[in-house]
């Protein structure tokens, strides 16, 4: 099974996590699956980068964790956005759009 089909740009994973958590609390596995699903399997996040990224975001105060019962009835660690995180998500999103817009411009007119 090929790992990341697309190498994520530095920092992009953080944006994806924040964006996904906007819709509500999710646990790590859920986030990974969600990315895979929505990106139509183009982006696969290795757990080796997902969890460190989650912990980093938690450390910086953009997300926080709480233990809750998962859909299978087992205890799982759910992540949810903090107020800071919501602001950060919006910020990162507009920055990303600006960036990809610029890249697209070059690709079209280059």
């Amino acid at each position, binding site marked *: *099974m090929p*790992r990341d089909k697309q190498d994520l740009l530095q920092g992009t994973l953080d944006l994806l996590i924040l964006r996904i958590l906007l819709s509500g609390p999710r*646990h*790590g*596995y859920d986030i*990974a*699956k969600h990315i895979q699903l929505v990106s139509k399997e183009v982006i696969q996040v*290795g*757990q*080796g*980068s997902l*969890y*460190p*990224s989650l*912990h*980093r975001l*938690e*450390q*910086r*105060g953009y997300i*926080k964790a709480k*233990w809750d019962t*998962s859909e*299978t009835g*087992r*205890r*799982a*660690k759910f992540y949810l956005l*903090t107020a800071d995180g919501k602001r950060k998500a919006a910020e990162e999103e507009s920055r990303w759009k600006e960036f990809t817009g610029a890249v697209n411009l070059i690709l079209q007119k280059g």
Partner: protein
Amino acid sequence: MVKWDSVWIALKSVFRNGKVEDELNEEVSFHLEMQTRHNIEKGMDPETAKKKALKSFGGAEKTKEDCRDGWGLRLLSDTRRDTAYGIRQLMKDKGFAIVSVVTLGIGIGACASMFSLVNAVLLKPLPFEDPERLVWIQSAKAMGLSAQTHTVDNFKEFRDENNSFESMGAYFAFFDYGAYIHADERGNMIARVRCAGITEGFIETLGIKLALGRNFEGSEWAFNGPPSVILSHSYWKSHFNSDRGVVGTNISINGRPTNVVGVLPASFDFDSVFTPGTEVEMLVPFPLSEETNRYGNTIFGIGRLKEGVSVEAGGANLKLVSDRIKERLGSQHRRFHHHMNTESLDDRIRGPFRTAFYVLSVAVGCVLAIACVNIANLLIARSNGRRKEFSLRAALGAQRWRLIRQTLVESLILSGWGLALGLGLAYVATNWISGLQAFSIPMIQNVSIDGYAIGFVVLIAGVTGLGCGIFPALQFSRSAPFEALGDESQRGSSGRRTVWLRKGLVVTEVALSCLLLVCAGLLIRSFDRLLDVDLGFEPSNAIAWRVDGGREFESYQERANYYEALLDSIEALPGIEVAGIADTLPLGRNRQWGIVPRMNDGERGPGTGAFPRVVNHSYAEAMGIEVLAGRFFNAFETSESESVIVLNKNLADQLWKGDDPLGKTVFVNGRFEAKVVGVVSDVKHNSLDAAPSNEMYLNFHQIGDFMAAEMVVRSKLSTELLISTVRKGLQEYTGRPPSNEFKTLQSLVDHSVAPERLFKDVLSAFSLVALVLAAVGLYGVIAYSVGQRVREIGIRLAIGASPGRIRSMILTEGVWMTAIGITIGLLGAYGFSRYLSGMLYEVSTTDPFIFALNASVVAGIAILAAFLPARQASKGDPNEALRVE
């Protein structure tokens, strides 16, 4: 912006690391479980599903590690692991660990003790308010106290006529002459105490807050005012059981009910600051009156400068006042006015000890440096032995930084253990030092391991640990794993650079120990010279016993007769040769009186000052003072007979410049005339290293100025027997148990050289430790290099080299290192020894004999240390040697 959440997580993880780890484990296993479940749903069998999940997760441990990185905790957990690993490694080699810890413990302990000593004696501010504004005010910078002190009237003029000082106070310098007996209600003596007289303004000027009670006040300051005392904190503790109720009550001093008005604070011991080595139990008021002015020069002044005035400016101001007094007095009364000398109180008290203590600090630093070098050497040797282990770890992907850290952690563990041991040693040492009453070093009783000392040694231990570990650690940063692995498989010898590094370290050790040994040698020689000094009296086979009449005498004649009879009864005891009496013993108190000769033409010649000793006729014989011309006093002289005086050689020579002094007349202290009947040898009255001074002897039948009685008894009996004999004699004669205030004359000498002895002993001990450590270091390096060269030596032996050749080959290596080390050490000593000049007596700081002697001692020890492994190498069996590996 502080992210409190993140701080919280970090804290939580530090204190509850286990919990955070558990949560991480659970999170990861949850993920794996979900993945497995998903795989099963896709139709895999459970076993494969699990395997697949694990595989896709991609290294659970690595992920966990990366997560910990996210917490900023990686360092912490790594360090914890390194520490555990380091301790395991050290425990594997217990011998190495013990040697290292003991070496470091001694080094660190010596450093900690020295720091506490320097801190207490030199660095801590004096126990007064704003001590930097306090100024010491004395007259001449001369030997005798009388020349150093001022009169009461002059002091009052200094105090009132200056405009630089906020306030001034003074104390009576001759308090030690007075006899004060603290007795219980029934009149039995509790203790003989020293009461230092302080003047109005003394306590206020120093800014001392009494622990209990109040300062003297009102009529207590007047001459013959109501008797009152302030107790020293330690006397209050030891003799009044720290009873707060004692303030305001009366105690019996010299038979008079005396009011205890206050207790000094624990932070201020009068003696530890002003008269170290001479305990002062109580303070009494010293009146600034007509009567005390007539005592002459008797007081030392202390002034508090106004805000912003420098010590120099204050001194210059007082000098003006002093010059005015001098002008007004003219040539008359010149003797009551000498000079004006001021310095900061801090310099006065600590100045004389600065150099000595800084020299000792440097020495202790050298010892610690040598200890470090030794540990570094051992660690390098060890790390060479562990090259394979480290290379393997490097090849398996351990980061170089991790390996360096591992070494540093190990050396820090060693220094941490050394720290624990060192602190224990320092605690014992400082306890011992602070108990030394005998030392005339200020504030030495306050020496203790306090927060500063602990902070300092922790720092030292940290630096030591890093310093020891840095050399072996740096090696790893250089060695590429393959090189090292290859190296190991070839011959197991260490790299060229390592060898040079280790040799350099050993050369440093030899140099430092040579430097220390030379300095210690100079001090030892100086001390020997000091002890060889002609004392002018015979210190062996004699004891001195402080005695008193136990009552007030009608007259000094009656007192003299009482003591003469006492001496007769003591002399009558079996085994006693002779007993004499004096008001003060040599190497203790001193005062000075004027003496003016009558010249042949009947006119008064130029006078001078001399130490007066009021004695009985047998004193010279009891002390072993040699009569050079004429005679000493005799038993027939009384207050009725002609007034006579005996001079020492120095004084006689000064007054008559070679003319026969016998039969000449002198005026003493401006009060009376006396005929010179004899000349005696010069006695060291101040200190052993002082030049001969003027001394005169007066007969206690003829002069009333006799404040205390020291009986000197000479006998061939053993000291113990002599003491018990005299004790019994005194008991029989006086009918009451005698005091325990006796000492051998030798102990007077010992006491007077105690600081010199301390410096000499400490420096000698340091230099011996340094020498031993250096020898061990040299031995280690050579033995190690022999070990590395077993095969080479085997081959050499096999192809016919003689054992002697092998021996000299190995020995040459040691000789070279020693020679270079000694050369550097001698050069260092040549440069450094000048700082000793103030501590040396009749020894040049570059005494060639001492330099040569100590260099050869170092050379001898070093070559012995090199010889042992050399001999072992040459004795090796070539077959055995070749079979190694």
